[in-house]
């Protein structure tokens, strides 16, 4: 018998496989297709203080080996999330854990979501999405070192639940941001969010995506995600959740060997909702085949010298 359980963020995860934010709604939509309570858990679609209407169509399109999306963080907002979405998760997920993906235009907005949710039941903690444009400063928390430190520090004061910061890939040195999160009191990291991309409809001479640019996800970004996960994990001592292009147990193991404690499956769910369970089973098969007793032995077991970059 192989052991996939791990203690992370103060609780036990029965499987390292979670569903990625924005690709599994609020869980319920996939309830009939994915045995949610048999995997590690899921991350909700982003929740903001106020509801957001999101972007005009087309919101998604296929790219070589992946897809591009610009949903625009459409979501029902904090109040309706608590009233309409959280109860189902609370009642239906007994063993799988729920992380709430949080976005805001300002540190205040992020803090308001955390403060507003913290007294509720039915979820474990927060995944803080810092790749969202900060309209006030015209920058992003995820690419501004001091803004990130301030944001994480502020959220830390709002909650004792796990705070996991989801980093953006388009920085020269993700290790800097990993360390900032650790020093500011975060409990974990998620790497990575999507890459900015643009797809042109050459016949209409217009962007395919209504929002012009969007985020690229899927198998195409797998090697970048593994690299950034490895780099982030080596740069701090926080547990890291590996994300990007995972569609098999072997893909997940690339992340785990590179240093991820947990992984998330996103785009692959669209291609086949059973992918999440298949990733879990692929990991089990690998442990079996290689005679590895527990998955913990594999986390960060890659034999390789650290990144060349500082």
């Amino acid at each position, binding site marked *: 018998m192989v052991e996939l359980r791990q203690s992370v963020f103060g609780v036990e995860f029965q499987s390292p496989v979670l569903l990625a934010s924005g690709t599994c709604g609020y869980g319920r939509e996939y309830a009939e297709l994915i045995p949610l309570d048999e995997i590690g858990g899921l991350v909700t679609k982003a929740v903001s203080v106020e509801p957001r209407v999101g972007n005009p169509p*087309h919101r*998604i399109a296929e790219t*070589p080996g992946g897809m591009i999306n610009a949903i625009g963080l459409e979501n029902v907002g904090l109040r309706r999330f608590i009233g309409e979405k959280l109860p189902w998760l609370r009642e239906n997920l007994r063993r799988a854990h729920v992380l709430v993906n949080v976005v805001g235009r300002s540190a205040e907005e992020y803090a308001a979501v955390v403060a507003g949710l913290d007294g509720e039941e039915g979820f474990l903690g927060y995944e803080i999405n810092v790749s969202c444009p900060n309209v006030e400063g015209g920058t992003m928390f995820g690419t501004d070192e001091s803004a990130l430190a301030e944001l994480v520090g502020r959220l830390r004061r709002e909650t004792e639940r796990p705070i996991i910061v989801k980093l953006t890939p388009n920085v020269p040195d993700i290790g800097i941001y990993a360390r900032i999160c650790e020093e500011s009191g975060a409990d974990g990291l998620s790497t990575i969010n999507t890459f900015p991309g643009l797809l042109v409809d050459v016949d209409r001479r217009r962007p395919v995506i209504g929002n012009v640019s969007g985020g690229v996800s899927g198998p195409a970004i797998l090697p970048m995600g593994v690299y950034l996960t490895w780099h982030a994990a080596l740069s701090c001592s926080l547990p890291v959740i590996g994300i990007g292009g995972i569609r098999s147990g072997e893909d997940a193991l690339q992340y785990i060997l590179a240093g991820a404690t947990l992984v998330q499956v996103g785009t692959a769910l669209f291609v*086949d909702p059973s992918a999440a369970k298949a990733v879990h089973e692929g990991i089990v098969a690998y442990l079996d085949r290689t005679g590895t007793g527990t998955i913990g032995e594999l986390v960060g077991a890659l034999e390789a010298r650290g990144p060349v970059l500082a």
Partner: protein
Amino acid sequence: MKVQHVAEATWWLELESPDIARRAEWGQFVMIGFGVDHLDPPFLPRPFSVGWRSEEGRVGLLVRVFGAGSRRLASLRVGDRALLLGPLGRPFHLAPGKPVICVAGGVGLAPFLFLAGEARRDGYDVRLLYGEGSADRVFDPALIERLTGEAPVVWTEDGSLGHPGRVTDGVDGAGDQAVLVGDPTVLACGPAAMLRALAGRSAREGFRLQVSVEEHMGCGVGTCQGCVVPGADSRWRKACTEGPVFDASELAWSS
């Protein structure tokens, strides 16, 4: 798996899927793809209307080639395996006892092959108006008759087959007897411009109109929020779970 070239750039696929065949309702669709090991288009699965089903558990799809994804589907061969998710979405709703007018533009024909045949057997008075650009694109009327029990009224824009002009002209009864009689339910599937024209008329003339819309889809089940179309109340609607069939009055039709 059966694959048949039925008109210019258009293929008829029959796939084994007893579960979908049993549960499908008129106007619903399936997501068809090739699983996570497949990177070439269609990497994301593509939505196709259920175009037919058999007692033996086969599902028929009418596939027209637009881009790389549909081209790959059209090049499926006997023995190939595809991944089907469905049946998905809200179906057409017929008003009991009232006549049904189906307006099909191009491959918008697909859901009506399914609906017309079964609804007629259920006793509905169904008229199928079917428009294409030209004759080479027309799905064989004799085949349609075999699938649905009656030949369609065909319109071609260049007049190369059937009535000359647009299928929407058919709703006026142009070139045929009047059709908007007996408090009919009009169902439409086809290009956005065709749906818009019909929606305008439905708003002015007050006939019931249900439209099946198209939008890029990711998941097909409501999780990705990728497939939105504008609602009349300036809220987005998900084409996959709130549609693809909408009451025309529910949507915003401003060009």
